[in-house]
């Protein structure tokens, strides 16, 4: 990790627009993320949070607007997207593990196929990454033999093995049974403590409050408000922010403070 310009944002997003048919998903979103920052994006469903994440590694091409990753414009037509994606880790709601590969091979296949790493070296790296997410003992298990929480931790290890500059989490705990959410959030918390740059779309407000450096509240394809957790949770500037957080608090009750 280079640190000659700690001030320069590692992710810079300018005026992003995306529409699907009649639906304006993103309406001019701009956002900077600095190295080592944990940004949690919250907001109602269908407000473009996932689309925003997918525009960073260009799994979704925006209609207009520009995105830079570590100074390289990924929205430029000549940009090699495979190289960009190799530097951005992504964790999906549905895990999307490769079902025909054991946990360790799920983690090793990226370094082998994309980084052309030596096979033995890649497996060693994969073992290390599995250990980091607490799954050293499950190296030879197939995804079908793992619980949801374990699958998601393998998916995190798979992303980490690429030594990404940024990690994108797209609702990583939304598909999990409640009792399995904690183990995934625990791993994410550890990553944050190791100063991994993270963009996290989640409804886990406990995690947001505890781990985020900044919370971004999105609605209707726009960023309505952003700021440190204390500001959004206790001194929201925008009535919609307060309303949304109030609804979430009603839904999850007092456990919000303790979960995650």
């Amino acid at each position, binding site marked *: 990790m280079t640190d000659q310009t700690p001030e320069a944002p590692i992710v810079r997003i300018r005026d992003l627009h995306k529409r699907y048919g009649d639906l304006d998903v993103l309406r001019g979103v701009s956002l900077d993320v600095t190295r080592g920052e944990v940004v949690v994006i919250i907001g109602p469903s269908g407000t473009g949070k996932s689309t925003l994440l997918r525009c960073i590694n260009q799994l979704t091409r925006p209609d207009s607007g520009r995105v830079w990753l570590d100074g390289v414009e990924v929205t430029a037509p000549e940009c090699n997207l*495979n190289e960009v*994606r190799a530097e951005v880790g992504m964790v999906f709601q*549905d895990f999307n593990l490769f079902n025909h590969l054991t946990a360790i091979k799920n983690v090793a*296949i990226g370094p082998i196929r994309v980084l052309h790493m030596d096979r033995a070296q890649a497996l060693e790296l994969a073992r290390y990454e599995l250990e980091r997410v607490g799954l050293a003992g499950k190296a030879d298990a197939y995804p079908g033999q793992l619980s949801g929480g374990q699958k998601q931790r393998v998916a995190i290890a798979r992303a980490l093995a*690429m030594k990404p500059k940024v990690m994108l989490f797209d609702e990583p705990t939304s598909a999990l049974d409640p009792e399995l959410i904690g183990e995934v959030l625990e791993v994410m918390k550890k990553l944050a403590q190791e100063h991994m740059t993270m963009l996290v779309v989640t409804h886990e407000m406990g995690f947001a409050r505890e781990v985020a450096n900044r919370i971004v509240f999105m609605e209707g394809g726009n960023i309505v408000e952003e700021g440190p957790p204390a500001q959004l949770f206790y001194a929201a500037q925008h009535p919609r922010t307060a309303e949304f957080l109030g609804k979430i608090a009603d839904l999850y009750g007092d456990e919000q403070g303790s979960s995650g």
Partner: protein
Amino acid sequence: MIPNLVEFWEMIWPNLGRGLIVTLKLSAGALLIGLLIGLPTSLLRVYGTRGMRAAATAFVDIIRGTPQLVQLFFIYYGLADAGLNAILVNLGFPNGFLVLEPMVAAYVALGVNSGAYQAEYFRGAIQAVGSGQLTAARALGMTRLQAILHIVLPQALRLAVAPWSNEAAYMVKYTSVVSLIAVSDLFGEARRIMSRHYNQMLMLPLVGLVYLAIVLLITWLMQHVEKRVAIPGVEVEAQRA
């Protein structure tokens, strides 16, 4: 009666055996041709551009929508048409370019036909793998081709084993149509014996049993293959007819 039967069996066995080998060769060859046609066709149908998808779909629909016997006769008799041959000669092709040997016509007709069906089996299998894993592979930085080769196909081919074993079993039986273009396959040899000895009530059940034995053998073999390639923790839904 019994000695007669043994004598008769000894007499017809060499011919039936030869026919059986033709049937097996034809089945294996047509399945292989079908695989070589079907797999790329399925990939074009799922991942191709709009034009490729349309072409692949048209091919599959035409072949699956017309009788196999019509296809066989078209390739054997239709392509041998004198007018067509004259045109081809004018274009610089050798005389009789599309006048095919019965065995060649049989391979082509059965292989192309099987290709269309196999394309559908593979397409179903590819789609069953789902797009999420493809997206995850692309997110790692794999090219589309890498993601298809290393992530989608290894799973799709496993899922295709069950329907493919059906195709293999069908193929062995379907090959019997080639006796109509004078190929001496198992059924062709049986027909020749029947025309000489008028013993349909013996020969038809007999060849039927031989086909049945082959089909059962294939089914049994493919069940083993299926078990061998199964992914632990993934229930592969057997799609047997």
